[in-house]
């Protein structure tokens, strides 16, 4: 890679950090419990809006897997999300009425908080509908994984976003608070993913799954990206460049092996397609606060009008991480 290019990326990283600092002024403190954070804790960072119903299960899921502290940015929720989170003993909460879009879809806010509180910690950066599945997640907590990554001198851990969906129209089985969303949305596409390499940032660009299959059959290049790097040993000089799809410095994006082997990786199970989705899509379309002029949501609105069914006869029913490993959606690498 040429020196000029490297320098450009460096400048870009600095720009992200300055932006983060600037946008951090939009954040209003709701509850600060960051003094509870101990040196080796695994932390979780989330931006969200109106996700109250999902929170109990979300928090339980990550607490059970060894996350010690949560940092939330609430983007002007109106459904009690903020109040609920402020009442949790292991959550620190900020809120902001500012534009989600203009904070690069929340990443500026998170970059700022990561820089402040994430430095030196393993950080899980996810949305409230994303659930990290990693090798041995049924028997080993996240700190076991991060200890192992650390001893292997690995700084970032990749996971592919796996869209989960129910069988039948998505409004048929309503989601209730505290419920495991994958009791309803337990199906997924096992083998229709397209992978390209992004040479500028060194990451892979993955598209496919039910969203490409149903909403973008004619223009797959617009299908949403599924590559994610949700677990990083954070350093105050790091910055997420585009959602959690890629990071700077670019070395962190090399979560794949180029010489034929497999690195350890996980899956981010995506509980987006629940009955809550149709209202969300309608609202997001109005707010126009989503990525690339919300064309993803426009496509949904077009495709979802008749309450679609994402299921097909080749859909795979989720069992456990070993199943995902056998299907080639994640890998143990050399972790045994």
């Amino acid at each position: 890679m040429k020196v000029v290019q490297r320098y450009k990326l460096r400048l870009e990283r600095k720009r992200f950090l300055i932006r983060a600092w600037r946008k951090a002024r939009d954040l209003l403190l709701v509850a600060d419990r960051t003094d509870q954070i101990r040196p080796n804790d695994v932390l979780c960072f989330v931006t969200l809006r109106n996700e109250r119903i999902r929170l109990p299960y979300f928090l339980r899921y990550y607490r059970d897997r060894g996350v010690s502290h949560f940092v939330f940015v609430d983007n002007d929720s109106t459904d009690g999300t903020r109040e609920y989170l402020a009442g949790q003993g292991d959550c620190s909460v900020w809120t902001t009425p500012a534009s989600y879009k203009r904070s690069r879809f929340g990443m500026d806010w998170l970059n700022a908080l990561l820089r402040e509180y994430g430095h030196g910690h393993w950080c899980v950066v996810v949305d409230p509908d994303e659930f990290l599945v990693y090798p041995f997640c049924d028997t080993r907590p996240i700190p076991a994984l991060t200890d192992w990554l650390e001893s292997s001198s690995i700084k970032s851990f990749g996971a592919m976003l796996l869209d989960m969906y129910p069988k039948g129209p998505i409004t048929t089985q309503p989601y209730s608070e505290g419920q495991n969303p994958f009791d309803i949305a337990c199906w997924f596409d096992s083998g229709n993913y397209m992978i390209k390499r992004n040479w500028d940032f060194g990451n892979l660009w993955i598209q496919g799954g039910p969203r490409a299959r149903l909403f973008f059959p004619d223009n797959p290049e617009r299908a949403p990206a599924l590559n994610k790097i949700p677990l990083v040993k954070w350093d105050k000089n790091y910055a997420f460049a585009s959602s959690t799809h890629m990071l700077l410095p670019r070395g962190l994006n090399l979560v794949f092996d180029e010489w034929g082997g497999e690195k350890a990786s996980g899956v981010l199970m995506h509980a987006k397609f629940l009955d809550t989705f149709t209202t969300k899509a309608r609202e997001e379309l109005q707010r126009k606060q989503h990525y690339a002029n919300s064309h993803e949501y426009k496509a949904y609105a077009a495709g979802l009008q008749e309450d679609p069914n994402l299921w097909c006869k080749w859909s795979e029913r989720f069992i456990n991480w070993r199943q995902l490993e056998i299907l080639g959606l994640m890998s143990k690498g050399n972790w045994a």
Partner: protein
Amino acid sequence: MSVGFVMLCHTALHRAAQVARHWAERDCPVVIHVDQRVSKEAYSGLKSDLSDLPNVKFCGRHKCEWGTWSLVAASQTASEMMLAEFPNVRHVFLSSGSCLPLRPVEELKAYLAARPRTDFIESVTTEDVEWTVDGLHAERFQLRFPFSWKRHRRLFDGYVELQRKVGFKRTMPDDLVPHLGSQWWCLTRQTLSAILQDPSRKAYDRFFKLVWIPDESYYQTLVRKYSTHIESRSLTLSKFDFQGKPHVFYDDHLHLLRRSDCFVARKIWHKADRLYETFLTDQDRGTVMAEPAPGKIDRVFSKALERRTRGRAGMYMHSRFPNPDWENGKTSAPYSVFQGFNDLFENFEPWLARRLGTRVHGNLFDPVRVRFSGDADVYAGCLSSAAAIRDYDPEHFLTSLIWNTRGERQVFQFSPRDEQRIGAFLASDGNAQISVVTGAWAVPLFNSNQDFHTIRKTAALLQKQEIDFVNILRRVQTRAEVKIWSLAEFVEEPMENLQSILDAIGGPSSGARITEAPRMVDLSGFGQFLQNLKNQGMNPHVTGDFPVNQPGMQPRSGGSRPYLVR
């Protein structure tokens, strides 16, 4: 009192304390070395934790760093203390703070008592060692390594390079023969004291101070000088991965560890509560005198190693995306491609499907849509039949299809009318079996009802596409199994040719002769059709030589009965 434990600790001291207590309470003296970099508070905490145990001692501390002499120095200091303070100890067992005993101490005592003169230490000559990771075998002893590998990597590498260039070589003192092995040993008092009290120890120590990773070679080399009976294996179960760091054991390894019958395992994750609980509680299992059998654990870890270094062939994902030609197999299983056959035979696909007993796809790369078997809209793994999605990434479309249908051979049709980008990939894939009848594309044109000008133009285009594809297939780099006939060649002996392809595929009915023959399209007048093309200035040479009036191709009884191959 027959065995004493020397423990080298640097992290998770509470776990080390637990294990030390376990041993000490079962009448095994313990000498603990704590890394000097451990804070004062932590050290005194550990000391006071164990202060009620008279047979636990703490020795002088060294600053320890991986790969350096300090680890040997620590074990020397601790061992000397063990030998001096506990005269009844017959065997000294070197362990670490993250070791865990898997079998009751009584079993270990009995095992060692039955082998009073045996030294358990892995000790292998440098020529026979394959497990070193850094590539330094003999050079560990021939070069000097004054720089830290962890902190000053560049200096380390640079100095090694320099010495290699200059041709510098150290010689072993006193003609010692360099040996390597696991750093976790169990030595008899006799052997250990002989090493520590050797009159030339100073010279040896001076030499080994500049050896790379001396804790894997110091005792392993010197033991050869004194021991009367070496068992070249470690009693500590300790596995290393491809980076040379130890594999870690977790709660879910409980059954594997229990069945291994090893005495001590390393390294245990410090939060593996269940392992510590289970193995530090006295197990009532009677006296078992089994030999350690780590084979099963070996297999688990060597599988993990292979996963990491070679991966699964034909699988592409977010943590495996090989550079071109590093795939170890571009696709996961063999598959067959037929070009021209469905132009030449009527209902070729259903016939082939019956014959092979598998599903047979149509033209997967048809420009309009993917022609999956049964004209499905979605196929295995939820692959879409949308042409745009396929053409966005045709190579991954194909590798996904082959991966998703592991266990069932994929067979599909290809044609010059299809999207051609996949051609180069097919040619380069050793799993592809490609059979081509060149010029068969002319048969549908011959039977079509278009005006001749259009036919002529189409024919020119298709011929060009086919020539391009065939040229790719004929390159030296091609790894696919390729068979090419011209149409004229093929129709001379159609059944023999088909049979040879099917024989190569194998499958359930391999070896059987073709009984039911596919119907070939009526070719009467085809020679004239080709001649007409030629007359129009387009030479369809890929079809081969068709005489204008082929006697063989003429309908036998004057009617329009199609030609049936037998």
